[in-house]
């Protein structure tokens, strides 16, 4: 089997003042057909810009300065806007965290949804409306006919995200990129949306690239996981292996820092000292070293290692077994 999309050594830089600042450094991972891949990390780790670069949505300030994104044998980064438009929204679509600003406030749900369908599937208005009704029903927006006539501000946050999902699914994409889709929503609504996404994946066989900072969501949704820290992938692997036997010190620390609802209250939370380095762009060696309890043994060596098939870790000590599992 071929990966659906393959990101190879991606470098992304942003213009800051007169210089360029590298925010993603050598990011590599693949998304396989039908899988849910979680891209997880704290704010500023580069997970969202990596996703935006897939669809060419970096804007004027952002530039891909190296690497390639292979989709169906083509490098998405080398396509013209026109060629990209045929893929965006049709084969690869995206939903965002910011449900307030992702829908156009002056158009009804119906007109925004049918526009996508007519644009990509070249059908008439009647067919598009029938398809839109069907999509709204499938995403749980009932009664669909009434929701079609509504404007975004007349819907609650959860309903808006469902409308976004309906729009993203309109043309039967092979990959759905979901950038923190439930961060702005309440946890009971989050559960509804996550169950919907999983059911849609099971039905349609599309792959989902789920970007999140919540390790709980990762543990519940992911087939595979990519952990990012300060612009680099630090650990990649099968979700079960990565969560039950995390290898990178950052992954381990992050898992221990989550206050659970089932753990004993008297167990002290492990916190990671310090904060994510703000100016990691020109750092050499291991970017986690300043916060890592094992940095005295490794000397800051941070190449990628493959301890087992399908697993990669940016830490030599984890691989050498110096850090006891």
């Amino acid at each position: 089997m071929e990966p659906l999309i393959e990101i190879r050594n991606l470098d992304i830089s942003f213009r800051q003042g007169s210089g360029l600042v590298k925010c993603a450094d050598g990011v590599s991972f693949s998304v396989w057909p039908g899988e849910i891949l979680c891209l997880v990390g704290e704010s500023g780790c580069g997970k969202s810009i990596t996703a935006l670069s897939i669809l060419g949505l970096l804007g004027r300030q952002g530039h891909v300065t190296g690497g390639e994104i292979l989709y169906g044998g083509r490098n998405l980064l080398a396509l013209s806007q026109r060629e990209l438009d045929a893929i965006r929204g049709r084969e690869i679509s995206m939903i965002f965290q910011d449900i307030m600003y992702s829908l156009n406030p002056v158009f009804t749900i119906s007109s925004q949804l049918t526009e996508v369908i007519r644009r990509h599937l070249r059908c008439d208005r009647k067919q598009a409306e029938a398809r839109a009704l069907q999509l709204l029903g499938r995403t749980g927006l009932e009664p669909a006919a009434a929701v079609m006539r509504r404007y975004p501000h007349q819907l609650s946050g959860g309903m808006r995200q469902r409308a976004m999902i309906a729009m993203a699914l309109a043309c039967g994409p092979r990959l759905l990129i979901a950038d923190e889709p439930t961060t702005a929503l309440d946890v009971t609504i989050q559960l509804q949306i996550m169950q919907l996404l999983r059911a849609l994946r099971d039905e349609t066989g599309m792959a989902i690239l789920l970007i999140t900072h919540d390790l709980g969501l990762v543990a519940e949704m992911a087939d595979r996981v990519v952990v990012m820290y300060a612009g680099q992938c630090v650990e990649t692997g099968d979700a079960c292996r990565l969560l039950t036997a995390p290898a990178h010190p950052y992954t381990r620390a992050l898992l221990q820092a989550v206050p659970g609802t089932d753990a004993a209250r008297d167990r002290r939370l492990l916190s990671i000292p310090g904060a994510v380095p703000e100016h990691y762009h020109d750092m050499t060696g291991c970017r986690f070293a300043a916060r890592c309890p094992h940095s005295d043994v490794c000397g800051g060596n941070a190449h990628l290692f493959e301890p087992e098939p399908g697993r990669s870790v940016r830490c030599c000590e984890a691989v050498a077994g110096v850090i006891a599992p």
Partner: protein
Amino acid sequence: MTSASPVLEVRHLSKTFWEKDGLLRRAGNRAVQDVGFTIAAGETFGIVGESGCGKSTVARLVMGLEKPDAGEVLFHGQRIDGLPERRLRPLRPRFQMVFQDSGSSLNGRKRVRDILAGPMIWHGVVPRGGAQARIDELLDMVGLPRGAQARYPHEFSGGQRQRICIARALSLNPELIILDEPVSALDVSVQAQILNLLRDLQARLGVSYLFIGHGLGAVRYISHRIAVMYRGRIVETAASEELFAHPAHPYTRALLDAVPSTDWNRRGRARIVLRGEAYGSGWDDGCAFRGRCPCADAACARAACELSPIDGDGHLSRCARAGDGPERS
């Protein structure tokens, strides 16, 4: 007052916000209805709930930033709601607040030194120009380098700014600190630092906390007792361990089920999935949760249940009909 009396007691607190809805009509939002609780010395009381449940309004009512429509707020047995500012001011140092957004709650044009010294000089805790030793002590307490005092708020990360806010709240030796979502805007690694800091400070200083949050894990980690709010009312309250081990109200059960767990072995577990979202104005007499409740029947529309005891240990729930609770799927 004896030393056993609670630091804070809140009784039957209610607040309705009115909004213009059309030309003449006004729409009311019953943000807080009949909320009551007590906080003992050295105790953390947590209020948890989803957005719009009224938890932040409770914090603002306790602080006197909003005036309640009904009910009482007693600080060491003395009523503080409705006190004129002149009479409230001498009490202010004794209860302080920390907000979610540390960026906007610190004056960006002042150095940390002046941010910390301001309230102490204003309330006469230290003489003008004599705050230096206390500032050093406060920075040590919250784990910031002493050199931080010469810098401005924007030079710090979110977690460090929250430490400054905590230092400012501590500067007046308060007996109660109201923490409104203090860790919600922080990354998980930094969130753990702040939660541990708050626990250490409480162990050392004996200060009480009213901790408002929506992250159940964080609220559980810090609180001795917890109240769950839904649509303006407390639906369940119990000791922290008890609430998480034996949730009684259908909403609490669904809320606990909805929290994602990092434990791989709990993946795919059966859970209650609530339908719909919170809606309606909450003006009728029925239970506000009935529209989403898997256990609701016709009686729930006629009258809401009172908050009543589940057992002898102060575990109260506002549902008499749930029984063994909803089916998980």
